């Protein structure tokens, strides 16, 4: 949906930018020696744990590895709707 609206009203994104984004993702995974199956499993297990604490819509979740200078960060994006009313600790 998002892409088709952009294609209708705007210019297509430059292919060099697409190349760069695709490469960054795949190279980070190459370097960490992780594959899609690993990322999916990580995603699912994180979601399982976090679902105990707050509510989020499953299709807006993003889990990825990103390069930051010489190191890597795990970026987990769980846009929350509301926290569950539980007492922690």
């Amino acid at each position, binding site marked *: 949906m998002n892409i088709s609206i952009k294609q209708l009203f705007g210019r297509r994104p*430059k*292919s*060099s*930018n697409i*190349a*760069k984004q*695709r*490469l*960054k993702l*795949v*190279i980070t995974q*190459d*370097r960490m020696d992780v594959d899609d199956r690993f990322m999916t499993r990580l995603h699912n297990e994180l979601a399982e744990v976090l679902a105990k604490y707050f509510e989020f819509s499953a299709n807006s979740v993003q889990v990825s590895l990103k*390069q930051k*200078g*010489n190191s890597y960060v795990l970026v987990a994006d769980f846009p929350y709707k509301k926290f569950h009313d539980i007492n922690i600790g």
Partner: protein
Amino acid sequence: MGKVIVVTSGKGGVGKTTSTANLGTALALLGKTVAVVDADVGLRNLDIVMGLESRIVYTSMDVIEKQCELSKALVKDRRVDGLMLLAASQKNNKDDMQPAQMKAICDKLRSTHDFVLVDSPAGIERGFNNASAGADEAIVVTTPDVSAIRDADRIIGLLQHARIEPINLVLNRFSPELVGNGSMMDQADVLDILNIDLLGIVPEDSGVITSTNRGIPLVYEDASPGSQAYMRIARRLTGQRIPIPDLEHKGLLTNIVNWFTRKR
């Protein structure tokens, strides 16, 4: 004591051999003594790219098998002082050579030459291990496309693991026009992904094809943009501080004018 530099890439066809031939010749033109070594056993090409194919008598395999002395296997390039080629055997394969044997050859060559450039085969297996065995430093050649860059990243990881440093990048077949219209990644994009130092950018130059046809490295032609790029890179290798020109900021018109006014 000279430096041993492996020229490598991971992916084939990105310009390793062309870069080795031109940088070796360029360094010799700058007055350095240079040995270029073809490490692509079984698929040798440095000899034909340099125009020395008819003069190969012995190869590195003959030296390893003690059929001849190293000095006898070196083919002198008669067009410039101080340039020698050590060819790879065409009838053997990569497993016939051990990394330690290549290292021994490189160590001998470094005692008599300022620079030893080793042209690595494509791939990450035995041929690469042989080529990099004796190297102090590495030049990684890539083109600005996804497959070459991904493979370059793999090779950089292996070079780092082998503690070969510095690892410098040569960005080959760079097209200012394509970068200008957003169809090709620029040097900032490539460096952001690979995270190593840039040694130089070689613009796309059809002169490479004609120079390879003739067996005369591009650097003998002063006017060609590729030749100038390789000469700048060679100067940087000798320690001179030569800024990397910002090729992509030239307008299309400037490039067209340059193309029509260059000597051919």
